[in-house]
C-alpha cells in the first residue's frame, strides 16, 4: 500500500532575512568557535555591527564555505534599545536572564549546577552582551576568521569575554551514543508545498515555534518585540529572529560508565543485563542510535510509543529520549499527545567540546581511563517561546520525577531534582515482565557550567540595531 502524503500549504519563509544557523546546523563546516563579547560604548557597538553586517550568513546562502553569526543577551539588547522605545518587550524569561533565581528554579540550576559555579555567564563572571559564532571548513579558516574578528573587536573597543572552542568528535556525544538524530522538521523550510511522509508528520512543526513572525502550532503569531521608530511608526524587531538558549554542559563520562558497569556486575536485580543494555535503557537508544521502542528496520527517527510500548517494556518511560520527546506516549490519547508534544519542541544546534575519553568510545576503556580533561556539550537550541519550549522540556519533563505517572524518576542524563534545590540521587525504573526493576541512587553525570539566553535577530533587525542613531 502506498504511504499517504500530508499535503498542505505552509507559510513562505523569508530565508534572505534569517540568519543561517536557524535553518541549518552546518554539518559540512566541522570546525567552530563561539566568542562571548562585552560592549562598551553604544555608538561603537553600532559601528561594529554595521561593519559586521555584510559578513553575517543569511539562510538563503545554502552551502557557505564559512558561516558567521551574532546573537545578543538581554544586557546587549538593553545597550542598543532603550526600554522606553519598546512598545512590546522581549520575552520575560529573556529579559530576566538565565542566571536569575526564577530561571534557576525552573531549570534546576542549583547546588552542583548553580550559576556561581559557572565558567561564564554566571554570578561571578564578567557580563556577556553578545556572542559571535564562527563555523568553518577547517581550523585554518576558523583561525583566519577569528583573527579578522579580533582586529575588529579592538577597533571598536569591544571586549572578548571568553572564546569557546568546539571539538569535532563525529556523530556521537561523549558518553558514546549516536547523537543529533532527531530535530523537528520546520514546516515551510522545504517550500510552501513541501510534502512529508505520513510517519514523519509527528515531527513536522510550524515555523512560528522557532522563528518570530510566522504562525505557530496554536495558529497564532508568537508575541514579538516591537520598537517605536517615529511618531506612529513601529518596527517589528523580532521578525525573522529567534531566541537562542546556550548552555555549557559538562559530562562526567567516567562516572557514568563506572556506575553502569558496577550495576551490571553487582546489582542482583539486573542479572543478565550487560552494561551497554543498562546504558541503553537509561538513554532510550542503543549506542549505535537504534531506538529501544519497536521501529521499522533501519529507521532511527520515526517510531511511536503508544501502540507497541505503552508501558515502557522496551523504552522505559523515564528514559532520556522518552522524557525529552514523549511523542504519542502521554496519557491515553496518542493523537492529542503528538499535537501537545509539537508545542514543546526545540531546534538543536549544539556542538561538543573536549576530546573523547576514548577515541573509539569503547565503554570499558572509558570506565578505566584516568584522564580528567573537561568534556561535554555546548547545548544550543532555538525556540520562539523559551518558557513553553526549552524550559518546559527541562522542567515539566526531564526534571519532573512524576512525569507521566512515574513516582520518583528524574531524567538520569540531564534531569535535576529542581524542587529540592540540592542534588539528590534519584531512581530509574526499567518497566518489564514479570515486575519492574529499579536503579537507585543515580549520581549526577551532567553539570551546567555556563550559559545565557540570547536573541538572534533577523537581517533587517540587525540593520536597524546598527543604524538606529539619534533615537
Amino acid at each position, binding site marked *: 500500500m502506498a504511504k499517504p502524503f500530508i499535503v498542505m500549504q505552509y507559510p513562505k519563509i523569508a530565508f534572505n532575512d534569517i540568519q543561517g544557523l536557524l535553518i541549518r546546523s552546518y554539518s559540512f563546516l566541522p570546525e567552530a568557535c563561539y566568542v562571548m563579547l562585552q560592549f562598551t560604548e553604544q555608538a561603537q557597538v553600532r559601528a561594529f555591527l554595521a561593519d559586521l553586517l555584510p559578513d553575517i550568513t543569511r539562510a538563503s546562502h545554502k552551502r557557505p564555505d564559512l558561516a558567521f553569526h551574532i546573537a545578543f543577551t538581554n544586557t546587549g539588547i538593553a545597550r542598543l534599545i532603550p526600554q522606553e522605545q519598546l512598545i512590546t518587550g522581549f520575552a520575560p524569561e529573556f529579559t530576566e536572564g538565565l542566571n536569575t533565581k526564577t530561571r534557576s528554579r525552573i531549570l534546576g540550576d542549583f547546588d552542583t549546577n548553580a550559576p556561581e559555579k559557572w565558567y561564564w555567564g554566571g554570578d561571578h563572571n564578567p557580563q556577556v552582551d553578545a556572542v559571535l559564532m564562527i563555523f568553518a571548513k577547517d581550523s585554518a579558516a576558523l583561525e583566519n576568521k577569528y583573527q579578522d574578528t579580533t582586529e575588529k573587536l579592538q577597533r571598536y573597543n569591544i571586549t572578548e569575554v571568553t572564546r569557546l572552542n568546539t571539538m569535532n568528535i563525529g556523530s556521537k556525544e561523549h558518553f558514546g551514543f549516536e547523537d543529533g538524530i532527531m530535530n523537528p522538521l520546520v514546516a515551510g523550510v522545504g517550500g510552501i508545498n513541501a510534502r512529508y511522509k505520513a510517519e514523519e508528520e509527528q515531527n513536522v512543526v510550524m515555523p512560528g515555534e522557532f522563528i518570530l513572525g510566522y504562525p505557530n502550532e496554536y495558529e497564532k503569531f508568537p508575541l514579538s518585540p516591537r520598537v517605536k521608530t517615529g511618531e506612529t511608526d513601529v518596527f517589528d524587531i523580532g521578525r525573522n529572529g529567534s531566541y537562542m538558549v546556550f548552555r555549557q554542559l559538562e559530562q562526567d563520562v567516567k562516572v557514568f560508565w563506572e556506575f553502569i558497569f558496577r550495576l551490571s556486575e553487582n546489582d542482583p536485580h539486573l542479572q543478565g543485563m550487560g552494561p551497554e543494555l543498562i546504558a541503553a535503557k537509561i538513554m532510550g537508544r542503543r549506542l549505535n542510535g537504534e531506538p529501544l521502542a519497536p521501529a521499522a528496520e533501519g529507521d532511527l527517527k520515526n517510531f511511536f510509543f503508544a501502540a507497541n510500548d505503552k508501558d515502557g517494556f522496551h523504552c522505559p518511560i523515564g528514559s532520556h529520549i522518552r522524557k525529552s520527546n514523549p511523542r504519542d506516549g502521554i496519557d491515553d490519547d496518542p493523537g492529542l499527545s503528538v499535537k501537545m508534544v509539537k508545542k514543546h519542541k526545540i531546534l538543536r544546534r549544539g556542538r561538543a567540546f573536549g576530546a573523547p575519553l576514548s577515541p573509539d568510545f569503547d565503554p570499558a576503556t572509558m570506565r578505566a581511563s584516568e584522564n580528567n580533561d573537561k568534556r561535554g556539550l555546548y547545548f544550543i537550541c532555538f525556540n520562539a517561546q523559551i518558557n513553553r519550549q526549552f524550559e518546559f522540556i527541562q522542567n515539566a519533563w526531564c526534571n519532573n520525577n512524576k512525569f507521566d505517572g512515574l513516582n520518583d524518576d528524574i531524567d538520569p542524563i540531564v534531569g535535576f531534582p529542581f524542587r529540592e534545590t540540592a542534588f539528590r540521587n534519584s531512581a530509574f525504573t526499567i518497566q518489564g515482565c514479570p*515486575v*519492574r526493576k529499579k536503579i537507585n541512587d543515580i549520581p549526577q553525570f551532567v553539570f551546567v557550567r555556563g550559559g545565557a539566553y540570547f536573541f538572534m535577530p533577523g537581517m533587517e533587525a540587525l540593520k536597524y540595531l546598527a543604524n538606529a542613531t539619534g533615537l
Partner: protein
Amino acid sequence: MKNITDQNGLIVIADIDANKLSILCNELHLLHTAIINKADHPFRKIKGIHFARFVIFPDPLSAQPPGQLFRLVYSGTYDGQLDAYLQAMTAGETISPFQRIFSCCKDYDPAMPPATALTTFIKGHMQRVDAYYSGYRGLSTDMIGKEAEIYTLIQQFLRERTFAATDDPKFIKQEIVLYLHQQAPGYNDIKAVPLPYIKPVYAALLIVLLLAGVLVLAGIVHLYLLAAFLVLIAGIIFYLRRLEQTAPELPDTEQEVAAVPSLTKDEDFYAQNQLSHLVAISPGGFRLGVLRAVLWLINLLAKYSFNKGALGGISTIHFAGWSILEKERTLLFFSNFDGSWENYLSDFVDRAAVGLTGVWSNTINFPRTSWLVFKGAADEERFKNWTRKYQIHTQVWYSAFEELTVKNIWRNHRIALGLNQEMNDMQTKQWLNLL
C-alpha cells in the same frame, strides 16, 4: 448512596479589620513558615483535611484607593460533614492559630467562647462554591495515606527481594501480599468506592436531548411558545456574538512581568502547586447569567462525569473550584494541581480550552472569544499572560500529601484494591505493572 465519604469544599470570606491587618499578615506568615518547615501546625491535627489556604486580597469594588480595604479568604477541602470539620478545627490547642487569624476580621465576636465564636463566624461568612471539581471523589485522607504506605512497603520489598524473569506473576503477587500481611496487617480494610457515573459523551447527549425535549414540549403546548423560545435563543446568541466582537482584550503591551516574581517565589516546592485567581466579571446581567449557567453545568459534569481522575482530559487537578463573589461582581478560582504552573496552564490550553473559555469569556480582558467557548484560552500566550495578571498571592497553602500526584493517588488505590482480588494471569501482570 451514602456509603462514600464525599469531599466538600469550604470558602469563607470576611472583611479584615484595618487596624489588625499587620497582625494578620504576621500570623499568616508564621503559619506559612511552619508549614514549609514541616514544623508543628494546626492543619496537621485536623484529620480529613486535604487542602487549605488563606488568601488576602484588596476589595476590588472599594471606592477608596487600593490598599485601604482588604478581605480574607479561607478555603479548604475536607472529608465528610462541615460540623465534624469545624469541631476538629476548634478542638483543644488546634483552635488557637485560627482564633488569632479570624479575630483580625471585622465581624469576629471575641466575647463569645472561642469555639462558638469561630463556628459562628465561619458559618456566617460561608460562600457558595458554584462549581467544584475533585480529582479523586470519595477517597478520604485516611485511605490515601494508608494506600501510600502500602506502595512504599511494596517498593521496600521489591528492593530487598530479587525475582527471576521466569517467576510466575501470581507467585510474585503472593509474596508481596504475604509481606504486607506481616508489615501492615490492617491493609484489607480498603474497599472500592462506588460513584454514580455517566460517560461524558452520554452526559452531552442527555443535555442536547433535554434541550430538544423542552422545545418539543413547547411546540406541543403551543406553536407560539416554541416560536418564543426560538426567538429567545436566537436573541441570546445574537447578543453574545455582538458582545464578543466588542469586548476589550488585554493589550499586548501589558505583559506584567513585574508582578510575577511575587507569585513564583512560592511555586515548585512540592510535586503539587496551587493557584488563586480573582477577576472581575464583565459588566451587565447577561454575562453573569451566562457564567452562572456554565458553572452550573461544569459542577454537574464534575460530579457525575469527570469523577475518574480527569477534568476534560486534565489529569493533574486535585481540587478546583469557582465562586462568584462580591455581590456578583468578581469570579474567584482556586486550584490545587500537579507539576509546574507552565505545565498546568499548557494542559488548560491544549486539553480543556473550550470549557475554560466558556467560564472566563464572561470576565474582563479575556483573549477574544468566539461562540462563547472557542478561541479565548486557545490563544496560548495571551491566555497565560491574562492568567498571571489576575492571579493573586496565596499567603498560606497546606496540602496533606504534597508529594503525591493525582496519578500516584489513583495508582496506589488500584494497587491496594488489587491486593484482595482474585486475578487471572493477565490481571496479575497488569497489577504488577502498577508497581
